[in-house]
């Protein structure tokens, strides 16, 4: 009974496919899974917009939207109708084709990442051998759409926002990759299904999640920072901050195209949270051995919503980072910490089981954090500001 509940979507899909002739089963099965993903995540996006507005509002000691439905839960309906019926304004001097394609490219590329995430036991769309590499390849393509949006608007603020956003995304992408490489090194596989399987063991009732190891905790923190910066989310949202650059690279977009950018950003957040929970938090595995009766997909989506809650919390509480502080942070703190994390993880693997490896690895990482983080990022004496242009 518990297994049936756990595998209910798989059983449902096989039952539906049973009505079709043999040769049609695989293509229709793939299309069915794709339609489910494309339908599910925008629905989660709608729920998240209202949760975010209420959450950030409560942190800021105000109420948030409460008019549209009971406690404002029907607000996404109102937002959807508004953005669909708004006039689609395209500036005359804007580059028509590129302006149209930028949000399309963003949404396509962001949804491709979900093809390799295991959302439950046996619930992955494609079990690729190089799954993690495919995910990062799709993430790298998203930067191009940001640039296309900023350049095609023929607007100095948009271009400035786009260049800042691309520089930020490239810098933190390296940190994202390096913190995931630690997991690949320890597991020995790029396939996300195998990575979750490697965390599916329990010792004294506690799981073998990678976050419970010293290098896993450091890796998770680096991944969380890099993931927040990749999706241009506060406190790294200078490219789209309202008080800085009007709206950055999506200034000239209105109506449905703006809604597509918004959708792309939130679905990218889901995607990165999903990957983070797969790599570090054990994907669809339960936190305690006794809790395994709860279906695996509930754990996956629970961890996803927990990560979204942390994102919303960070947005409400932390101030925005300036561009040079952001880049300084990426290259001078996050990157060296990730490299030292790799070294610590390697030491962990070769030291053999026991308490010694815990002590040594934790010591290395704490020493690195204190020396690089605390001392290295201390503000130097401020001099007159210098500017750099290309010519």
């Amino acid at each position: 009974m518990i297994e049936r509940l756990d595998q209910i979507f798989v059983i449902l899909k096989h039952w539906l496919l049973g009505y079709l002739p043999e040769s049609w089963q695989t293509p229709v099965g793939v299309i069915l899974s794709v339609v489910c993903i494309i339908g599910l995540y925008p629905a989660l996006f709608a729920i998240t917009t209202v949760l975010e507005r209420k959450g950030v509002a409560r942190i800021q000691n105000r109420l948030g939207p409460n008019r549209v439905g009971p406690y404002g839960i029907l607000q996404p309906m109102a937002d959807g109708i508004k953005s669909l019926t708004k006039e689609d304004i395209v500036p005359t001097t804007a580059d028509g084709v590129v302006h149209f394609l930028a949000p399309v490219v963003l949404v396509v590329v962001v949804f491709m990442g979900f093809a390799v995430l295991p959302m439950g036991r046996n619930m992955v769309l494609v079990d690729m051998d190089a799954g993690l590499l495919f995910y990062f390849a799709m993430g790298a393509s998203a930067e191009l759409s940001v640039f296309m949006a900023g350049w095609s608007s023929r607007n100095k603020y948009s271009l400035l926002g786009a260049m800042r956003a691309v520089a930020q995304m490239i810098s933190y992408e390296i940190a994202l990759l390096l913190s995931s490489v630690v997991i690949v090194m320890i597991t020995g596989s790029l396939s996300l299904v195998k990575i979750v399987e490697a965390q599916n063991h329990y010792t004294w009732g506690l799981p073998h999640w990678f976050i419970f190891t010293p290098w896993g905790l450091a890796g998770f923190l680096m991944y969380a920072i890099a993931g927040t910066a990749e999706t241009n989310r506060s406190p790294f949202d200078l490219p789209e901050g309202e008080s800085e650059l009007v709206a950055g690279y999506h200034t000239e977009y209105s109506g449905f195209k703006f809604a597509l950018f918004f959708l792309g950003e939130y679905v990218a957040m889901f995607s990165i949270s999903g990957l983070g929970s797969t790599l570090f938090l054990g994907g669809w595995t339960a936190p305690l051995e006794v809790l395994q009766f709860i279906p695996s997909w509930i754990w996956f989506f629970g961890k996803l919503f927990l990560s979204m809650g942390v994102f919303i919390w960070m947005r409400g509480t932390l101030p925005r980072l300036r561009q040079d502080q952001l880049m300084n942070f990426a290259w001078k703190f996050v990157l060296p910490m990730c490299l030292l994390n790799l070294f610590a993880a390697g030491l962990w693997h070769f030291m053999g089981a026991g308490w010694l490896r815990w002590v040594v690895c934790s010591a290395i990482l704490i020493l690195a954090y204190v020396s690089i983080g605390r001392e290295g990022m201390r503000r130097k004496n401020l001099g007159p500001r210098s500017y750099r242009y290309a010519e």
Partner: protein
Amino acid sequence: MGFVFYLISTFTVGGALAAVLLKNLVHAALALTVAFFGLALLFLRLDAQFAGFAQILVYVGAVAILVVFAILLTRGSELPKEGVFSKTWLVGLAIAAGVFALLAWAVLQAAPWLPQEKAAPTVTVNDIGNALMSRYVLPLEIVAVLLTAALLGAVIVAMHEKERSR
């Protein structure tokens, strides 16, 4: 040669043609990205998944962005007055056509003798990792040194020189 191969090839060759023919530089760079994607799809068709995804990650995610940034920093959006093709464009085109004719003749002539193993090679990423660390470790280390040298070189070449006091 299936329909999918022809579709992807048209896509790739079209992107490459657009990349060298378009007057607007940023459009040309975006067409180049389309060509890179098409080539990655061809790699995937040839059962080289690692190479295909590495192509997208490196070329689309880094080289295309580099090209676009360079176009922006050197004011590429302004078109030159005398057009975008050089005065000797006919000679260049003739040379390129000659090269293509030679290559195509060579390929079609050697067609009966080309190897054609039908079975797809089962290569896992594990094998690639093992090969990189055992048989190809020297090229790996040399590429690492090369990338470090290129990084330092590019930063120094493009760095803004400090104002020399005259």
